């Protein structure tokens, strides 16, 4: 690959970015929905891993990777419901619940996933955009996974839905002002339940990608913290679905930059590239914060969060 130079890097980066961004995309869209309803879910890491495990197991048992994706969504929704249920109790700390679910989720996933490490489950098929392409790296870069396309479509659908449908408007109302929502007759707890379940389902699908496409196996080192970092991603994207798409691509590209550079012999600084998006998020949080200011774009009910 070294002789391809910049073109090779760019192609590897392109393909890698799409691949690496897919789990970020799903988890961030899910967390975006949850946070727009006024609640923060720090447990998505556990949901992601549980989703990955369920997807792998279901795909193995049924022979169909898509059933695996469905299973991951269901498991994610269940964990989301658990989170919502616990947070709805008075005096329970939302952050602590998230961390508890992270511990429980990863624990359950590795517990039930023990027998899944060896067998090979059917993988999600790649979409060959240019199967007849002569240039091998281009062909490889254009092998796009279907979940990515679904995720992109989902980002657009969510953006449209949040502005143009009643459920979307109600979600934003509840997340901005519980009082206004209640005055209008909506029940914030129920809305948050659905939003958290949807968020969990999407996070589960993000996990399904990891086990059924890339890296495409089940083991305990599968996740690299995408679930936790999705929270930062959502802040970076200022709670906008399309910006989540962009941010996921950015974070994914940062992750793919390392291997892409390594392919042309550059071995320095890979970890720092990985960390760059997080540092950027922190910088943005600091810059947009002020001691007294009212932050305009954060959902009002996230309150002390932002």
């Amino acid at each position, binding site marked *: 690959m070294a002789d391809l130079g910049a073109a090779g890097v760019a192609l590897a980066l392109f393909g890698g970015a799409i691949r690496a961004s897919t789990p970020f995309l799903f988890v961030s869209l899910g967390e975006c929905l949850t946070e727009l309803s006024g609640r923060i879910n*720090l447990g998505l890491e556990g949901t992601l891993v549980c989703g990955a495990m369920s997807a792998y197991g279901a795909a193995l048992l049924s022979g169909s990777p898509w059933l695996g994706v469905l299973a991951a969504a269901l498991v994610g929704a269940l964990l989301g419901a658990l989170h919502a249920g*616990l947070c709805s*109790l*008075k*005096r*329970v*700390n939302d*952050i*602590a*619940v998230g*961390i*508890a*679910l*992270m*511990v*429980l*989720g*990863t*624990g*359950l*996933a*590795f*517990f039930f*996933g*023990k027998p899944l490490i060896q067998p090979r489950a059917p993988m999600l098929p790649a979409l060959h955009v240019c199967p007849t392409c002569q240039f091998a790296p281009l062909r490889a870069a254009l092998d796009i996974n279907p979940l990515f396309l679904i995720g992109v479509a989902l980002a657009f659908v969510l953006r449209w839905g949040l502005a143009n449908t009643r459920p979307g408007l109600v979600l934003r109302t509840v997340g901005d002002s519980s009082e206004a929502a209640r005055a209008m007759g909506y029940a914030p707890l129920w809305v948050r339940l659905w939003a958290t379940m949807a968020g969990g389902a999407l996070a589960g699908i993000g996990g399904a990608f990891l086990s059924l496409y890339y890296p495409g196996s089940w083991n*305990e080192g599968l996740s690299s*913290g995408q679930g*936790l*970092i999705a*929270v*930062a991603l959502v*802040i970076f994207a200022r709670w906008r679905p399309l910006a989540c798409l962009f941010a996921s691509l950015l974070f994914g590209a940062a992750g793919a930059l390392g291997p892409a550079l390594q392919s042309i012999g550059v071995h*320095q*600084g*890979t*970890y*720092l590239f*990985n*960390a760059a998006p*997080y*540092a950027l*998020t*922190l910088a943005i*949080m*600091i810059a947009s*914060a*002020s*001691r*007294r*200011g009212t932050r305009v774009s954060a959902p009002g009910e996230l309150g*002390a*969060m*932002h």
Partner: protein
Amino acid sequence: MTSLTLVLGVQPGMRGRWLGRIAEAWALPLLALTVALLAFGAFLAACGVNPLAAAALIWRGAFGTWFSWQNTLQKASPLLLTGLAMALPARVGLMVIGGEGALVIGGLACAVIGPTLAGLAGSAGGALLAQALMLAGGMAAGALWLMIPGALRFWRGVNETISSLLLNTIAIAVMNQLVEGVLRDPLSLNKPSTVPLAPGLMLGQIPGLSVHVGLAFGLVLCVAAGVLMQRTSFGFAASVNGGNPRAAQMVGIDVGRLILIACALAGASAGLAGAVEVAAVQGSATASLAAGYGYSGILVAFLARHNPFAIIPVALLLGGIAASDGLLQRHLDLPDATVAVLQGFVFIAVLAAETFSGRLRLRCRLWLPLPLSLRGEPRDG
């Protein structure tokens, strides 16, 4: 409103009240723990495993033999320190989850300072000085790292949970980068690590136990932190701010200073854990420095309800559970994630129980056949 009361067989009056208060503080977590254990037992039964057998194995693996005790103590040592890293800022009202990052930074600092002091390894006094410097360096580095989220929260209103989470990732990335890059020991081929410490500088073990001195540090710091929080004016001021920041403002408490000190102490604890990991266990800094002790510390702190004294038994409990995973694996063929599942159950149960704290008065008449002189008045209120 249903209620349970525990009638204590103690004298009425101040001593009785004090004991009653302690009993109340412990009753809820103990109840939650029991519920969690029962639920876990049901979970195991549903998976076809004999819960009683598992319980016996956990007991044996944690506290059954002298060997298992030492194993437990070994596993509990870092938890004592990382638990403090969460609990101290929580007492002041901040939810900082940055223990993992501070631990890594502290370990890194220790691993950097250590090799430069290799010359001191010759003499006993020199070795002691070197060790003190390494540990101090680790604590200082961790303290500075964890002061960042605190400062950002107080002066810029940045949410400390998220900023500390981000700083964790950044710390681990920096550590990995340095360990594989500039600080890499050219002799470490398979697994990148920093230059190892001279053997004479490694921390020893507690005499009589095959557990490194990190345990002693942890115990001492927990006790010291507990005394600080409950017996000093600093701890009082911290409780005031943690309970109602407006009241703290009104009486002129210097909240910024409070936050910075709490975060610095928290970071120093985690940093010490990292330094101990390097100087007593690994000998150098490697990628396995980020082993999740920081995140386990969060669990410890919440279970202990952020009380430094309570961190000691909780760390022992969690350390014991972690220590028994070997036995569970070997005898019941359970995956090592079993302990994580149990931890998750316990964590959730304790959090859910918080909803009852102070609201449902625990009052249940347990008729104990106690002599009249010892039967105290039921606590009212």
